[in-house]
């Protein structure tokens, strides 16, 4: 079995739920365009989501067919993406993170400041931030059509998720920017996220993530 990159997306119910879902779906759809295998799904226990409640979503990307496609929780996590920064205080966003993994936070705060809230950061290989609020003007899309595994009527990457996806492509290389450009609605916001991401490499190394920045 080849290496599978497991991604967890932390977001908030209802008001930022679609943004989180867009991140996971954006990753999976772009990865498939890259010729990889990928899954994306909500955390079933976190549904139904409530306004502002912390919720989790998952994506998996692999070079080969994913054997544990129908296994619910990832045992380990390679990348943790935090769609709303205050979550770093409330939740252990590095839970299950493999040594050398990546933390990507949508925030205007500098990396050093965010690190204050992450006492277990020694497990990290890198931390990145992108100010998606500033790039998109804080645009959040609230739409329920894609909940419960439904068909999303609005499309991916209209709001905050576009720059987050761009930033992820830049630092992790897990998906190609070109593929993302075919997936997201707001391509320029995605490009800005790609270009404007802040990154700090940390000492731990990861077997699969090689920083492309």
């Amino acid at each position, binding site marked *: 079995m080849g290496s599978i990159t497991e991604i967890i997306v932390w977001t908030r119910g209802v008001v930022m739920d679609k943004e989180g879902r867009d991140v996971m779906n954006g990753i999976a759809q772009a990865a498939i365009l890259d010729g990889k295998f990928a899954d994306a799904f909500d955390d079933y226990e976190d549904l*139904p989501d409530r306004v*502002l409640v912390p919720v989790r979503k998952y994506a998996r990307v692999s070079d080969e067919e994913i054997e544990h496609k129908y296994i619910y929780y990832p045992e380990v996590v390679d990348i943790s993406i935090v769609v709303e920064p205050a979550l770093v205080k409330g939740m252990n966003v590095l839970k299950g993170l493999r040594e050398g993994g990546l933390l990507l936070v949508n925030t205007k705060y500098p990396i050093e400041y965010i690190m204050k809230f992450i006492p277990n950061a020694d497990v990290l290989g890198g931390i990145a931030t992108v100010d998606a609020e500033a790039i998109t003007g804080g645009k959040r899309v609230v739409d329920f059509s894609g909940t419960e595994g*439904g068909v999303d009527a609005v499309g991916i990457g209209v709001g905050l998720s576009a720059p987050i996806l761009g930033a992820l492509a830049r630092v992790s290389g897990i998906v190609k920017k070109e593929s993302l450009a075919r997936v997201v609605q707001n391509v320029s916001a995605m490009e800005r996220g790609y270009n404007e991401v802040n990154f700090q490499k940390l000492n731990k190394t990861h077997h699969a993530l090689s920083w492309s920045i």
Partner: protein
Amino acid sequence: MKDFDYKYQTFDRIKSYRNAPREEYYVPGHRTCAGCGPALCYRLVAKAAGKDTIFVGPTGCMYVANSSYLCTPYAVPWTHAQITNGGAVASGVEAAYKVLMRKGKYDGSFPNIIVMAGDGGSVDIGLQAMSALMYRGHKVLFICYDNESYANTGIQTSPTTSYGANTTFTPPGKLIPEGKTLFPKDPPQLVIGGHPLVKYVATANVGYPTDLMNKVRKALSYESPTFMHILCPCPKGWKFDEKLTAEMGKLAVQTGLWTQYEWENGEYKFSHIPKKYKPVDEYLKHQGRFGHLKKEHIAKLQAFADAKKEWAKKAAVSPIEVVAQVPAG
């Protein structure tokens, strides 16, 4: 049935927020939405009712979001009921207390038994059990906390969902541009119209907490079944900014889409009637569920509000004949 002197509770009127009991019986630590209208309603009802209370909670948000994973926010006895049978389970609890007190097995005063049912658990799948409770005359307060949808399952239409609402079962589309095409059921009128033992029915709204609490207390002081229909704006389902929950309640009243009244022994008493009503759009514009509506749809909702106002005007002056007459004494 038998002559037995049950010891009932009595309640004082709450005059101000400061005068309301400080104790909370619906405590912090639950998974309801930030800004949840039904949660605010639950808290106010519990506060007004006090510690000698038993809640029956049919399935819905106030079950699933509140009693998540073996921890609950109810500081008084609470039992789950199926979404179908809140009225029946409460009837059983009440019947048990009647016989246990009569047999000397319970020596406290008769507890308040309150069903907290959503709109589905009250007037859709739960209607049969609710109506039977009202008919049989159990000393139970049945509250329909109305957030105008099946919210717990992801906002599906219910019989109280507004005309024109976008729910996940009534999405607006090319053929059906307004989303929901039907106008809602009227829960208090369903109760008033056919249950001779019911002597008190009230509507309330989380925008008016003192009024809500006093109506709860009044309802609980009856020895027969009582019904309250409480508007509980739902930030998730209605798609408004969660800080506007109480505002939505007030706007519903100010636009005439919601009427605050008590019906007591056949007579209506209205409150919070605005001097001048606002157009319904003032209410609709904050809510994403109405974002797709066109002028003609909004006009229909305005006409609906206008008809409600007319009805309230008439009902306030001359009591409207009730089909199931209230027996004297």
